[in-house]
């Protein structure tokens, strides 16, 4: 039973992930991502991490991807991009070879690993009963990991501040600083000539 559920959700996750990469339309990519995240949520349920499964659906699939879709449609990039341009010749075949070899290495390592990819049982057994999930996670977050949690809050604030600054349109036209300097020099020279 477990194996069947795992195989089905793995197929859902992988096809979704491939869909994200290969669809020409960004909106389709975002929707494929929802599919992937749902598959991961099923895996969480399988591991009896029910709280994480719920969070996965509500936060990721629900909020974040929908935000993606909003941004994509508002920015008007909801059409296919021309991806045929190759800035460095031979880049793509090389990337395919490298990617395939790294994939091969990872696959080999995971298959030959003694005792499976997760050696220690702590890493893949449920933490307490399913109903205790939320409580145990909350306690861990606010006791042993409280420092990281607080600083993650700072991180989010920083990200918001920076995003606002960067997304505000510049008031002056886009011009390279060096060009600007040259322009200034040019203006100075013109003024000098005028004075002569």
């Amino acid at each position, binding site marked *: 039973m477990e194996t069947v559920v795992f195989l089905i959700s793995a197929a859902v996750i992988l096809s979704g992930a491939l869909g994200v990469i290969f669809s020409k339309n960004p909106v389709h990519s975002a929707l494929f991502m929802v599919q992937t995240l749902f598959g991961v949520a099923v895996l969480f349920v399988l591991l009896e991490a029910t709280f994480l499964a719920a969070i996965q659906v509500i936060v990721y699939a629900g909020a974040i991807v929908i935000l993606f879709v909003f941004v994509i449609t508002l920015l008007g990039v909801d059409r296919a991009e021309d991806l045929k341009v190759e800035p460095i010749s031979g880049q793509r075949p090389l990337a395919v070879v490298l990617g395939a070899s790294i994939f091969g290495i990872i696959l080999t390592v995971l298959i030959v690993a003694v005792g499976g990819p997760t050696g220690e049982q702590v890493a*893949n057994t449920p933490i307490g009963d399913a109903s205790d999930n939320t409580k145990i996670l909350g306690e861990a977050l606010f*006791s042993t990991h409280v420092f990281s949690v607080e600083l993650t809050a700072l991180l989010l604030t920083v*990200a918001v501040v*920076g995003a606002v600054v960067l997304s505000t349109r510049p008031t002056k036209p886009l011009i390279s600083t060096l060009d600007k300097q040259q322009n200034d020099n040019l203006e100075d020279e013109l003024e000098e000539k005028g004075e002569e």
Partner: protein
Amino acid sequence: MSTNLLIVAFERPAIDWHAVAPEIVLLSVGVLITLLDILFLEKARPYMAALSGLGILATAIPLLTLGIDGTERVLFDGAYVVDNFSLVLKAIFLLAGYVVILLSTNYIVDGDYWESEYYGLLLASLMGMIMMASSRDLISVFVALELLSIPAYLMVAWRKRDPKSNEAGLKYYLMGVFASAVMLYGMSLLFGVSGTTVLSEIADSIDAGNGSSSVMTLGIVFVVAGFAFKVSAVPFHTWAPDVYEGAPTPVTAFLSVASKAAGFVALLALIFVGFYELSNIWEPLIWILAALSMTVGNLVALRQTNIVRLMAYSGVAQTGFMIAPLAVAGHSLSTGNQALSAIVTYLAIYAAMNLGAFAVIITLARRTGSAEIDSFSGAFHFAPGLTVAMTIFLFSLAGIPPLGGWFAKFEVFRVLATSGETWGYLLAVVAAINSVIALFYYATIARKMWADDPSEKDLNNIEVTPSLVSALAICVLVTLLFGIFPQLVARFTEVSLLAFGV
């Protein structure tokens, strides 16, 4: 039933407030800056640089009291450790941050670059570095890494009107996120095998026999690769030249010193506390990174005409030198301790000399309006003081006695040569050849500044702002002091992480 839900037995975790005092002070200053910006808007802007500088100095006070106290403090079940190693590194970060603020003051005002937000982000990034110095667990290492990287991504793109800066920001962000993803995958594999995120417990798990798992090897390789990106070691260096060139120059100085040092701290903590026993895995990896970084960095630097790009490649080469002692660190415990001291020494001296070089570049570029090396020709005629300072920094970077860089390089060679391993000797030979190549391009810049005729007609002495003068003074002082009295820096960098790991 419903009342049961309300009574949750939760014990507040025991927190050693003295140990986290530096973090709290720095965080408070950052929050204060953001609040002042919201309340006073434009009116508060002129005071922001001074305020953040003072904030960093205030952060140094609890750091000093912790250093005088000297006891090792372990918080959160070993996830956060305040020991001599972390205190020394925190001091280096604070000093580098202070100098970067001095460098930024005029640059940011001139460019009208959102000052309050800039200093807020700078302090946040610094906060991430300070946290990194104490992190001894995969989760806090990762949070610290993101906290120091994300403000850096934003600051690189800070010159919004310049397409080059936009390009640099995007490149840095995409590559940085990719490296984080690879590293995070490695961390998840490590957690999968050992069942814990605390580094010292991972070491225990390796002792217990999990170290032979091939998954552990894969995890270590991925984590090291992730940090190799952060310290810009070849072949993960491709982002550096474009990002350094496009970013505002003070931010470049910050990236090339503080951000690099933070990557090193994490690498050192992971290797010495976590995977020290598995030296057969990480030693060859580090050896290749070190040899490639030195050689490729120096050879490409020879051909650069833009001084910021040259500093980027010289930074890659210096990374090779800094990482080299790690390649023999697993040989024995004493070699390990020596390697650690050598790297920390190098980080401290490198911070001073590289920041100094950038201070000169910023000052000269304000005048010449260009970062081409040729535009600095004959700088001696209009900026004699700066030329002397630049010569000190360049020769220090090249490793000429009696400057600081000499002692840093000497320590590296000493560790490589005394390890008694053939691979150590080989790496020492590679490093020696590279020192000569590096001297060539550093000396070329110095020669142009001293001997060539100035390209400018205007020979009035250059205007140097007070903040740049103080930045230069700090850097020159540290570079000279550490070179002439090496025992000074050696006293502070005699640190050890191995008591924990083994």
